[in-house]
């Protein structure tokens, strides 16, 4: 199986360790990962802000870059949701539908495509998991990420109250409606702190940047971490 990593633009610039973690986990499981350098950004911010014309060249670039691969994996639920759910509406074509159907969030690739729950990781810490909105309600990831985390040696998973509630990020929403976004963030941060966890894990570094920014502002002793990096630890 030819697996391509779509690292996403946010991870490429801001969180390269998340991309490295995906490579580590898949190589540990015996798979070779390719990183097509023509990849850039999925265009989610453009599309969700209403800039359709500005999104279409990015859609084309994605389809061109990844059409040769059997599976495309991304450590971002919202970018995968963009490709699988929004691309077909923006620019329907057979080539696009085919690439979109082979694009997976990491936990989908591991659990559904590769049939793996225990990736051989060790992470002796207390962790809580925030299921990000697009993973929860667009991709329907369900408990796949939590299953993967539960199989990690030494890891204690603490339940997060109000887990299914949005953290208030919403892309440009955080800038256009900073007050409402901040009120939602405050509630999410309080729930995270109540778990007593050392780490807050999620499938989206954008949401983690938002919640992490709130935790950091209040000097809360919780570190945001993409769950791929936990799966890569040993």
């Amino acid at each position, binding site marked *: 199986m030819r697996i391509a990593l779509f690292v996403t633009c946010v991870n490429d610039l801001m969180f390269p360790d998340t991309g490295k973690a995906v490579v580590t986990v898949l190589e540990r499981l015996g798979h070779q990962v390719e990183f097509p*350098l023509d990849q850039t950004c999925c*265009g989610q911010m453009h599309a969700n802000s209403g800039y359709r014309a500005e999104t279409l060249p990015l859609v084309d670039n994605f389809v061109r870059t990844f059409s040769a691969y059997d599976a495309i994996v991304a450590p971002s639920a919202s970018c995968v949701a963009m490709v699988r759910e929004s691309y077909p509406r923006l620019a329907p074509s057979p080539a696009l539908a085919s690439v979109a159907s082979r694009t997976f969030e990491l936990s989908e690739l591991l659990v559904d495509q590769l049939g793996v729950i225990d990736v051989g990781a060790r992470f002796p810490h207390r962790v809580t998991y925030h299921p990000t909105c697009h993973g929860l309600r667009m991709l329907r990831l369900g408990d796949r990420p939590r299953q993967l985390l539960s199989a990690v040696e030494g890891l204690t998973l603490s339940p997060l109250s109000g887990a299914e509630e949005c953290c208030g990020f919403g892309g440009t929403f955080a800038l256009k*409606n900073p007050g409402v976004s901040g009120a939602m963030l405050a509630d999410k941060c309080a729930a995270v702190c109540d778990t007593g966890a050392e780490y807050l894990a999620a499938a989206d570094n954008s949401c983690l940047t938002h919640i992490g920014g709130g935790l*950091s502002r209040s000097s809360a002793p919780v570190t945001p971490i993409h769950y791929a990096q936990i799966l890569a630890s040993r």
Partner: protein
Amino acid sequence: MTGTGNIVTPLPFPTAARRELGDQQLRHNLRKATHTIRDKRLRMVGEVPDWEQLRVAGAAIKDDVLARLPSLLEQFEAAATAAGATVHWARDAAEACAVVADLVVATGTAEVVKVKSMATQEIGLNEALQAVGVHAVETDLAELIVQLADDTPSHILVPAIHYNRTQIRDIFASRMPGVDTAALTDDPPALAEAARRHLRSRFLSTKVGISGANFAIASTGTLAVVESEGNGRMCLTLPETLISVVGIEKLLPSFADLEVFLQLLPRSSTGERMNPYTSLWTGVTPGDGPQTVHIVLVDNGRTDTLADPVGRQALRCIRCSACLNVCPVYERVGGHAYGSVYPGPIGAILSPQLSGEGANRTLPYASTLCGACFDACPVRIDIPQVLVHLRQSGVDAARGRPSAERTAMRTMSYVMRDRRRYSAALRAARRGAAPLRMAAGRRGTLRRLPWPLSAWTSVRDAPLPPRQTFREWWTREHSS
């Protein structure tokens, strides 16, 4: 023809939201109330094994109605007329108000009793009646509270959701005629009893009742109202004249279709298996109930909405307000922040479409696109999809006008559609961030950024890019 009436927000949403966010009591009231209804709804929906099929059926029936609306409306008019009702047509709020005001004035009455109705709130009927010297008495408990307080509703189902019981007690004590102020406590049964006493004499003496309708059956000309308090049944049966204001999208093809909607609506709205009162009437029944029955069919922007293939799904809405109760934005700011009588997620897609381009431009952005509304909607309105669609329409309509956001989006799109430009931009961003590392300190985060990112750092720290991008790492690793 675009809609008019109480569907246009006077303030941009972020401004109105900021005002509401400052009210701690409001936040507390909303959180408690929305979470209570939310949990009840989840329990009631969880009991129904074929809930998903019901949602699909509800959406399909409404889509069928929308696809052949003109012929169904004519069928409804013919059936209702044959049953003794008089059907009127109104293109917008002003026309609808004028029709109702003329009918009421002709009866010579100075007071009407009202069933809770979103259509009459939408067209601003109470104000219009006031202008011709007619007082409209709201008889739904929560609407009565809002009316006594000289306030506006903040929720579709629970218009007084922004008040707690102590505040309601104070409103009754100071505003309700004839109430025993000293004896009135904030005990819910005591408050309900005070309202009952206040309303009873109106029900028995008022000659004209005004309602909306939850459903209108095309094949029979029947109207249906579902409610919980029995005030509706009073208004629909006791007066001599009944005038119902009905949006043209309220139609169902046949009586049998109620089977689907009478399961979907109460579980989604009040979190009940069945609502306590379901009233159905078909024109005039000689010797029983109102002997003069009028139906005012209102467009007010609905035909325009119907013309949009993506946006028209908003017309499936049955006003259950499940989307309000699960919305994290609504929970923080309440209904008044949305300006329109339709608040929350459904309001954010309905108000801008009813009012047409130009008004309500900030409402489609009043959402994080978290998707909780779509999951809760009993008729499967994909609210996030319509929100994005309306953002697109707004952006397209503003093309040609200079905007910092558009310039940024254009530039980023240009850079990101090409690998070389993209790599160079990442490199530049990483290098550009280097001088900021000093400011970031040990935690590696920034506390303050210039505009427009100052909106981010107002309540959150911002991270800095590390010294190497992923693609630089990959290229180095695989260069040998």
